[in-house]
């Protein structure tokens, strides 16, 4: 069996099926929805960080951009949710195009510039001068498309698409070439890889993923402020989850989200007063003791991790 099929059959399908069944069993649908959103975002981070080495510290810029793309379509064009969702993705891709010059930066410089870019987008969207377009700081209320159930299924669809992208990257020469670019751009160019084009494609793909996630999020929550959808914790969580599991793999980010976001919710439900403290310590421990993620426990033993 080709590995692509194996990955789709034994990783992607079971995950999707579980999350399709869970709402019937477990009633905190928003928690399930947030799991799906973080699965999407963590894989989006995986695409850009895992496969090209750019750490998108302002990843939430695309997410918020998508959410506002969705909101503006609903508010101004009275578009139906599915169409608005597509526009959410397009909005994020356009934002990604605008930010492609950032790819000239390396390492921490890229991470910081990306963070600054996401904050710039936040303050732009939230400026009262744009009240007629974005509702500025006053927040949007999308009662016309309010349908959490449909939004949940849309989120699963976006997750399926995202996982499809990652499976493709993991099994294709394209993905291999991306990793080559990450390891050494000069050598990659000397292998005939168009370094700039590869990076831009990965960058836009991860922007699209976050934009769609932002779109379904806007659809689901329907009332939000700029601070809600541009909250830096989306970036941080997505990155920490992806790293915890292990990037450049399919299952790493999935395991990362399931375990770490699970633990996060467990702490939140049980010992709320030390929530932030415990979580901060957990993150530090992760970096110090498992810097290559959980999958490294397996790869260190020479096992292959998809």
């Amino acid at each position: 069996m080709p590995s692509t099929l194996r990955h789709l059959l034994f990783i992607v399908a079971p995950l999707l099926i579980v999350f399709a069944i869970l709402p019937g069993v477990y009633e905190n649908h928003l928690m399930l929805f947030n799991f799906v959103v973080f699965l999407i975002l963590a894989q989006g981070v995986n695409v850009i960080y895992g496969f090209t080495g750019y750490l998108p510290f302002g990843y939430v810029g695309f997410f918020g951009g998508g959410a506002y793309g969705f909101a503006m379509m609903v508010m101004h064009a009275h578009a139906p949710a599915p169409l608005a969702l597509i526009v959410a993705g397009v909005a994020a891709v356009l934002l990604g195009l605008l930010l492609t010059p950032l790819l000239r930066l390396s390492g921490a410089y890229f991470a910081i510039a990306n963070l600054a870019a996401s904050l710039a987008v936040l303050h732009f969207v939230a400026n009262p001068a744009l009240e007629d377009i974005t509702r500025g700081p006053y927040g949007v209320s999308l009662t016309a498309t309010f349908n959490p159930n449909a939004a949940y299924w849309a989120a699963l669809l976006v997750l399926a698409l995202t996982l499809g992208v990652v499976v493709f990257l993991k099994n294709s020469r394209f993905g291999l070439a991306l990793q080559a670019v990450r390891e050494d751009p000069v050598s990659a160019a000397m292998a005939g890889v168009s370094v700039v084009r590869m990076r831009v494609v990965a960058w836009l793909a991860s922007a699209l993923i976050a934009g769609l996630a932002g779109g379904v999020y806007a659809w689901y929550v329907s009332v939000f402020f700029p601070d809600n959808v541009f909250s830096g914790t989306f970036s941080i969580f997505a990155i920490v989850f992806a790293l915890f599991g292990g990037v450049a793999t399919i299952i790493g980010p999935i395991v990362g989200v399931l375990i770490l976001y699970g633990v996060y919710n467990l702490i939140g439900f049980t010992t709320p007063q030390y929530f932030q403290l415990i979580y901060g310590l957990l993150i530090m421990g992760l970096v110090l003791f498992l810097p290559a993620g959980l999958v490294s426990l397996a790869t260190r033993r020479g096992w292959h991790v998809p």
Partner: protein
Amino acid sequence: MSPEPTPILQADGLVKRFGGFYALGGLTFHVAPGEILGLVGPNGSGKTTAINVISGLYAPDGGRVTFEGRSIGGLASHRLVHLGINRTFQVPKPFLSLTVRQNIEVALAYGRSASAPPSIESLLQEYRLAEVADRPAQDLNNVQQKTLDLVRALATGPRLLLLDELAAGLNPTELDWIASRIRSLAQAGMAIIVVEHLMGFIEQITDRVIVMNAGKEIFEGTLAVAVKVPEVIEVFLGGEHAA
């Protein structure tokens, strides 16, 4: 030497500046298919810069470089690879977290070799990497990494190959082995430019050398003749001319 065929690469008055420093100050030379050309000269004479310009790492600031009659100055590296130019690096830079096989796969897939490229298995066998094929490149020793760098270049089916200090750090047996590989590549019609400090190695494999100083060529001919030219001797100051 047989009568010279048409050159595959022709450099005319190449200039490369870094700030006010002229790394190349009007370098002119050519190389023909099937020929092994040595670039020699003291440190800082512009040998590696020449290779970097030809392989597209730097755009030239002046002069002209043509490959198979086509001007290639300033083209991006991957475009040059597709045209049939490739190189190795003084310090090899394989894709460390990828396996040896994956390293070669990338080049095979993206090299757009004009001729059918050699198969991955034959490359692994021929260059003694079969045993480590499924290990990540970071596990390889320096010589193996250098070989992998060469194989990565060969996988794109180049017609012009630039070798930057390939021989450094190899023991005599390995040197003989790699020299024979290079010669057989040339015999198959590949043009090869070798930058090297080891004069014995240069003498062993090159048909012709260009001696460089301060970004320009000061001698062209065989090494045996070069070492008798006073200007060349002066440049090396009795340095490395082992011949």
